[in-house]
């Protein structure tokens, strides 16, 4: 009986020690994951800043005009057409806005 009680006590001690060790192990694992999370968040923020910098309107305009040879649309080259979807006579139907780019000016100039 005494041996049994001793073994049970020993088991309890082992369980307690194992639990403490495992808590510390999981703690380190959590910390590693936290560090990884911080690294990924940092990388995300860096990419977000980079994306915002690269998509700045003045940069896009510069690339479009200087590298791609584009020019800002002149008056008459962009036409905005408000149209309702066909077959939907309801006045509640949301008008569709279409922007049409033309490379030809109305007076025939290019």
């Amino acid at each position, binding site marked *: 009986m005494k041996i049994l009680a001793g073994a049970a006590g020993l088991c309890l001690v082992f369980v307690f020690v194992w639990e403490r060790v495992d*808590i*510390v192990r*999981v*703690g*380190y694992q*959590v*910390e590693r994951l*936290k560090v990884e999370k*911080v690294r990924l968040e*940092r990388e995300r*923020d*860096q990419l*977000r*800043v*980079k994306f*915002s*910098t690269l*998509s*700045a*309107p*003045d940069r896009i*305009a510069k690339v479009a005009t200087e590298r791609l040879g584009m020019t*800002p*649309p002149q*008056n*008459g080259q*962009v*036409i*905005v*057409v*408000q149209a309702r979807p066909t077959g939907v006579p309801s006045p509640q139907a949301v008008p569709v*806005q279409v*922007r*049409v780019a*033309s490379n*030809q000016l*109305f007076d025939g100039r290019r």
Partner: protein
Amino acid sequence: MFRLVTLQVLQAAELTIKADRQHQKTVSLEGARGAIVDRHEKVLAMNMEVPSVFGVPTALESPAQTARSLSPVLRVRTDELERKLRQDRGFVWLARKLDPEQGRRLEHLPKEGIGVVMEGRRFYPKGPLLSHVLGFAGMDGEGLEGIERRYESDLRGERRVTILQRDALGRTVFPKGLTAEQSPAPGHQLVLTIDEVIQYIVEKELEAAVTRTHAKSGMAIVLEPSSGALLALAVNPRFDPNSLSTLEPSRWRNRALTDAYEPGSTMKAILAAAAIEERVMKPNTLIYGEQGRMAVANTVIHDHEKLGWVSFAQVIQKSSNIGAAKVGMELGEQRLHRYLQAFGFGQRTEIDLPGETGGLLKVPREWSRRTLASMSMGQEIGVTPIQMVAAVSAIANGGVLMKPYIVSEIRDAQGNVTKQVLPHVKRRVISPETARTVTQILEGVVTDGTGGKAAIEGFRVAGKTGTAQKIDPRTGTYSASQFVSSFVGYAPADNPKLAMIVIIDEPHGEAWGGAVAAPVFNRIGEQVLNYLGVSSHEPVRLAMASSRS
């Protein structure tokens, strides 16, 4: 056994405190500063963690060698680094908030006596775009100018002191480590009413005009008349908030809000609204132009054109000073003052940006015998650009004065809206009928008057030119060579989508508002209406376009 009792019982409290000191670390943490985005969620300002480098001089064997290896990476002079590293101190900052690229290069350097900590650095990815509105945050992350300052309490992350559990190697250990609940909350995100594309168009055209006219500076504001929401606000010259060290303080000031100027003839738009609302004038009321010269209170008022009998509408369209002075006299001091106040002059618009001034509007008892005539043509009154565009927006908005605003929404870190700003009506200043009549007169300014160069093909434009002489600080009188050229207006006149003011300060050469500022209005207006997808009023033109495309 005795030792056990001593340690566990007698010295328990004292030893527990000692142990805690060894494996606990108290740290002060701060949540990341909130981002600022435009109305389409485009990032205008955000925080990023970047490395800061410190030295521990007492732990260094060769400060000179360390300084030499660090200098090219930190971009700090070797002798300066060496001087810092030779100090008899346990901690010294060597370089703070480096670029991410510098941070990567740091990984290859010796670590002895050198430490790296991550700190939040404010980035403005669009560079100088919207700089006068955004302002900037300082080295310690506190908002110093602009929106960064005005919304400091919202943007700033939570500050919290917390205790971390650490092991023998100094690593943080669960369970007393930092939990999600303990982490300081990041600051809130601001959503602006600004549209970065419109802002870009405005800054580009303003800069071109300032360069072209060799002007001292320029300002332009675009707002939505129906709500008072700011779409763009530009001041030229600009500055880059990413390069604080190169900034001159005078360049930071948002002069569109802080500096009052004499508006000159743009004030005649307000005068017209007051005269028609009070039924003092009708568009066709005849006024004699005195052939371009009229004496008022021992002074002489001149017109740039010798006019005889002209209608009230023509007085505004041709920008006659004499006609405006006569209309002012018909209105009288009290009524003119009342309308100027009603339109918001002499008081702050209460826009949510710091540093706004109320301009200068004297009360009638302080007026001289000339003041009534002067104010009618925009002299002896100081207004800020934001006041003027807000006042003219009231005409565009059917007579209702809106409060201008720039932050439309505040969100917490999870994206929940904590505050939504709705358009705020300040008051009705004129009736819808008066607003329509004044709009017709102001359309005449563009079709038949001084503002022809503001006309936008395919759209009805209403507006008023202004050419104000500046006060010469040496003589205290009006300068013959220094002018403020301006144009304020809105389009499309029949359903205004934008109201805009353009001010060019001290242009060289031709200085008329119609020649200097009106073309800028035209170029900005054309591009912005196109960008906003506002339909042209010319149906024939659209039919032609459809058949070709």
